[in-house]
């Protein structure tokens, strides 16, 4: 393994499968009565959150605690050079404290890369979401969830070859979509992006995904195994990306009718939190096809696997 996890694109197929397999082991731990391993005893892990995200923070925190790490939560909301504490000062403070790993969430794309490639801090950096760039642990937990639904107990060692995944919604601003297209294509899946043209990048030629504007047409022609609905952020709603929320929900939202158009084995995913009635309706969200809660559960196992992988093993390669 490398020292940091900054981008889902950093993982080779073998490394990605290894993390998913380790997460299988971790998920067994999460099913037993004493949900704790001594693996990271004496290691200090800092959750450095420049942006509110209770869900992601809690998921990492549980993962860290189940591995017996000492956990420090550092919330530095609204921080930037102009508003008080800079990333550099914060990083140097954490270095002085002696952090072995830093889990960073930041509103600026590339913040995790800057932290990893500066000489401000020596520990491992885990990107827990940087602006509209990437969210690699989300992609890993999504892949894990797909693999479990498709291969069940036969999951270990498997990739996602030939699996068709449709990711629907605000691709332009989605770090989930960016990380997923990288990881899923590494694992052999075929990725389709569906969005109104205003919410696709002007030039998406670098994406490992096919692009569609029409959700129904895509569902009919591609027959995806997985449909992943993205959350529509409130700040997009009044910025002329689409006329009204009602129109968006009608054309790009997932609902009971579209659920019926899926093949029987297909699943519907959502990274949460959901805007019920906007990108996904209640029937879909609460159907057995929906994996929303499994994704949350699997998130803990994946984050345990990532922490274990980064903090163990030979360092010489990447130091």
């Amino acid at each position: 393994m490398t020292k940091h996890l900054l981008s889902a694109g950093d993982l080779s197929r073998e490394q990605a499968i290894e993390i998913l397999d380790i997460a299988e082991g971790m998920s067994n731990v999460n099913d037993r009565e004493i949900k704790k391993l001594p693996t990271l005893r004496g290691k200090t892990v800092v959750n450095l959150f420049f942006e509110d995200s209770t869900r992601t923070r809690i998921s990492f925190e549980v993962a860290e605690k189940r591995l017996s790490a000492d956990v420090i939560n550092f919330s530095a909301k609204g921080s930037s050079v102009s508003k008080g504490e800079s990333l550099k000062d914060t990083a140097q403070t954490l270095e002085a404290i002696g952090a072995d790993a830093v889990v960073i969430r930041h509103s600026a794309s590339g913040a995790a890369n800057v932290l990893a490639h500066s000489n401000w801090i020596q520990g491992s950096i885990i990107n827990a979401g940087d602006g509209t760039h990437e969210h690699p642990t989300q992609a890993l937990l999504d892949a894990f969830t797909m693999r479990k639904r498709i291969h069940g107990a036969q999951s270990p060692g498997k990739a996602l070859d030939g699996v068709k995944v449709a990711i629907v919604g605000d691709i332009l601003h989605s770090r989930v979509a960016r990380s997923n297209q990288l990881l899923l294509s590494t694992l052999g899946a075929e990725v389709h992006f569906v969005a109104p043209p205003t919410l696709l990048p002007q030039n998406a030629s670098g994406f490992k995904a096919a692009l569609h504007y029409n959700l129904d047409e895509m569902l009919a022609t591609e027959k995806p195994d997985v449909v992943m609905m993205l959350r529509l952020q409130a700040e997009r709603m009044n910025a002329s990306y689409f006329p009204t929320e009602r129109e968006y929900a009608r054309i790009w939202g997932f609902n009971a009718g579209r659920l019926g158009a899926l093949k029987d084995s297909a699943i519907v995913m959502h990274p949460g939190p959901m805007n019920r009635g906007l990108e996904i309706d209640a029937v879909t969200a609460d159907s057995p096809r929906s994996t929303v809660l499994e994704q949350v559960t699997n998130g803990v196992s994946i984050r345990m696997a990532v922490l274990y992988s980064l903090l163990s093993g030979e360092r010489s390669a990447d130091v």
Partner: protein
Amino acid sequence: MSKQILLKNAQLASGEVTDILVAGDRIVEVATAITAPSETEVLDCTGLVALPGFVDLHTHLREPGFEQSETVLTGTQAAAMGGYTAVHAMANTMPVADTAGVVEQIAGLGIEAGYADVYPIGAVTVGLEGKQMAELGAMANSKAKVRVFSDDGKCVHDPVLMRRALEYVKAFGGVIAQHAQDPRLTEGAQMNEGKVSAELGLTGWPSVAEESIIARDVLLAEHVDSRVHICHLSTRGSVEIVKWAKARGIRVTAEVTPHHLILDDELVRSYDAVYKVNPPLRTQDDVLALREALIDGTIDIIGTDHAPHPIEAKDCEWNAAAFGMLGLETAASIAQLVLIESGKSDWNRLVEVLATKPAQIAGDAENGQPIAVGSIANITVIDPKANRTVVAESASRSINNPYVGMQLPGRVIHTIYRGYQTVKNGELASRGRGRND
């Protein structure tokens, strides 16, 4: 009077090898085998190229207001090290150079420093706010004799205001230098919009935001029969619009920065904010278009857009970082790379883009003069065969230099500014030109 300087065996842009004798602030003799009069400093220029001193039409000297980044003194010292004998100081200082008082102060600081002529550029609008025209006439009539006006850093976006400014400066032979950037199309923009911005999740700065303003402004210039200068043109589309406008007879001139000639947006993948600049680094295709346009004359000049920033403005996450990079000390090398090393142009063209044309656009009669008897002695001597690795240390007060570690051709050996040697054997003079030099 300063003592005399004799440059022996210098090669001129034309290729001719000659001696050049400087006395006082003038070139007094250009001939082969001049015998050095007494009290003459003789500089052996064998193998070196002597060119008219360079003129930068686009420099941010940061003083007054941002002296932690640069001052008129350090900025002109960097200019001298880069072979420049004149710089035009952009108006986005604090206070903004939008009154006669501020421009006179900046001009005065330039004379005091003595490393290069400092021509202040006046703001087009009060406080660069794009709302009300600044007192262009007062600045033109001040001791600073401002002829170039720009809101650089911001675009004169209001079409009516732009039209009026283009008309108004005709009264005193001025020119508006436009920073072409549609503000609405570039809200929150961080880098060139394209393949790379899509992958990096950084808000895009689309080419069309530059091109639409250039298209509008050349048409406005035509309509009111005035001159417009396009600052730091950065896209293939902009080149095509300027080419069209020139063919149509519109009085437009265009500038390209050194960095847009050799750097592209792939560099942003590092998220290293040293590559953050406005307009942003574009694609390799744009780079190639800009090079061709510089060679064929569609683009008239190289303007450095030398933009110093303190370390903390760059040593941070990309979004929080400031736009801009240094350029004065590397511009000539990049010009040499693009024009000479490419084998596609020559030293005459290099002199045009770095000296003659910028002086002409700005109306600086005392700069950009040829190396000939009677000219003001602004001379830059370059070793074209040198190959140097760019280092962070420089005469500038800032270090936001994107070329550190790169190999660039050519080195400035001597800079003679009005008969005074500001740079000698690659070393900066310990003081600038004084009243008695």
